[in-house]
């Protein structure tokens, strides 16, 4: 699975990222790399720092230490936490995207589905209404939202549809990295399965790199090439997904895996 990846240079190189909230070390010394086209899962219990790490990688949170070097499409290497705000916003629209656990945080609930998908295109300078519309329609089809819903606002959509719309809204500018925070959280099981399938297909087709935060080891197993296990802000284990799940080395990973198996 990762033969191809190993040949390339990483798209993301994270070294020694630390985030403190007052006295709390929410993320400690996070170090890992991500290769183009690779899917990485971050698992760990509630409060272990997964969301905090992800938001830092999106440039939304300033870490207290460390760097996150991102290689842009143009081949330029930028340190995400040290980007100036205009540049960070520009990259956040074109080079990466963030899928929130709660669709409310990632969608404009009063704007039509088409407008939601088109926004990133317009922000990136698209000014031809017909082209924007066609692109939005194509993306709705890709995330399996019926074309007749293009002018409906997401507040009338089901949770699964909202999540798929959020994914379309992010992928429309074909980012090279997608950060997803519990994208299937809060959905019932059959809806989850369909969404996971969709994410797997799209990530595969587009060859984008993705980091997926999840509680759910089955999600990691299904989607991820590699995984990180976090405990109390620290990455305690990293490796190929199958290896970690089948033969966990760290006691906490062992506990995590066995508790799922028992459940």
């Amino acid at each position: 699975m990762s033969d191809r990846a190993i040949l390339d240079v990483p798209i993301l190189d994270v070294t020694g990222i630390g985030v403190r909230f007052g006295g709390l070390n929410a993320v400690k010394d996070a170090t890992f790399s991500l290769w183009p086209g690779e899917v990485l899962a971050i698992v760990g219990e509630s409060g272990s720092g997964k969301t905090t790490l992800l938001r830092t990688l999106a440039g939304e949170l300033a870490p207290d230490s460390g760097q996150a070097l991102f290689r842009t499409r143009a081949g330029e290497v930028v340190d995400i936490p040290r980007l100036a705000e205009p540049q960070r916003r520009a990259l956040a629209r074109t080079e990466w995207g963030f899928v929130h656990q709660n669709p409310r945080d990632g969608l404009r609930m009063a704007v039509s589905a088409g407008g939601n998908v088109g926004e990133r295109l317009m922000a990136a300078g698209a000014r031809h209404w017909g082209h924007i519309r066609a692109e939005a329609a194509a993306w709705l089809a890709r995330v399996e939202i019926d074309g007749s819903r293009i002018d409906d606002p997401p507040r009338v959509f089901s949770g699964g549809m909202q999540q798929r719309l959020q994914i379309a809204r992010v992928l429309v500018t074909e980012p090279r990295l997608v950060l997803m925070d519990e994208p299937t959280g809060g959905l019932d099981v059959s809806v989850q399965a369909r969404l996971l399938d969709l994410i797997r297909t799209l990530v595969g087709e587009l060859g984008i790199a993705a980091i997926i935060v999840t509680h759910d080891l089955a999600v990691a197993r299904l989607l991820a090439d590699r995984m990180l296990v976090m405990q109390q802000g620290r990455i305690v284990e990293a490796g190929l997904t199958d290896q970690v799940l089948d033969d966990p080395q760290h006691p906490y990973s062992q506990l995590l895996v066995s508790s799922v198996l028992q459940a």
Partner: protein
Amino acid sequence: MTPKAAHDPDYNLGYLDEQTKRMIRRALLKAVAIPGYQVPFASREMPLAYGWGTGGMQVTAAVLGPDDVLKVIDQGADDTTNAVSIRRFFARVTGVRTTERTVEATVIQTRHRIPEQALTEGQIIVYQVPQPEPLRKLEPRETETRRMHALADYGLMHVKLYEDIARHGRITLSYDYPVLVNGRYVMAPSPIPSFDNPKMHHSPALQLFGAGREKRIYAIPPYTEVRSLDFEDHPFHPWRASNCCDLCGAADSYLDEVVTDDRGGRMFVCSDTDWCADRREAGHRGRLAGHALATPRADDPA
């Protein structure tokens, strides 16, 4: 034109104290230096409720000098209660000459219109602005709209226009139509009809905007690029009723529709009363020329 007079000695010249006028002028200078950028200012109470043009009045008070000639219009008309009372107010507290003629005015305070008569160098037009933030309806958070302006992050503005076309097949927004000023800031032109938007572009006059309740001042210096936002395949097009003025016959002015009786009788008249009167004086006649609505100018001795 009314004659120059002494101002009411019970008030400071221009009603506001010198300190406040200076503060407003400083905000105006900054606004002129950054076309389309909303400059916060410490808005004062005026003898009028917010929403009745207190922002415009404060700007007018700060720029009026003894030799100015003031014109005040409301929806294009010089003779509405609001226009008359603001004009009288400034005549009283500044003693300046007032006029209804666009060509005579050096300062024009307006609500909802730009005069049809093209403005010229040296003139100042002051707009009364209820909501200065063009992104407000789309993004209620002030911190976020400020950031959007700072980063020229205007995708959201186009989302609004996208939605309009999706819903109606065309851009139906017909007043307070957002513009991009000097290629940099998206700006609310105040609730003027989109018909008037092209008049802002490269205007030789200085355009000042005052929002009292929202405490913002902004400006367009003379000869500045002002582009109405649109899409390549849905270009901006200023809306106007296809009729002619029933009083003066004008086919290219902005018209108000007036109900004339309770049997469905209606007529279209220029919303710019000065323009219409000028045309009638020059002999232009519309379908209902001589109608009672064709009143002479109040300040005409005739």
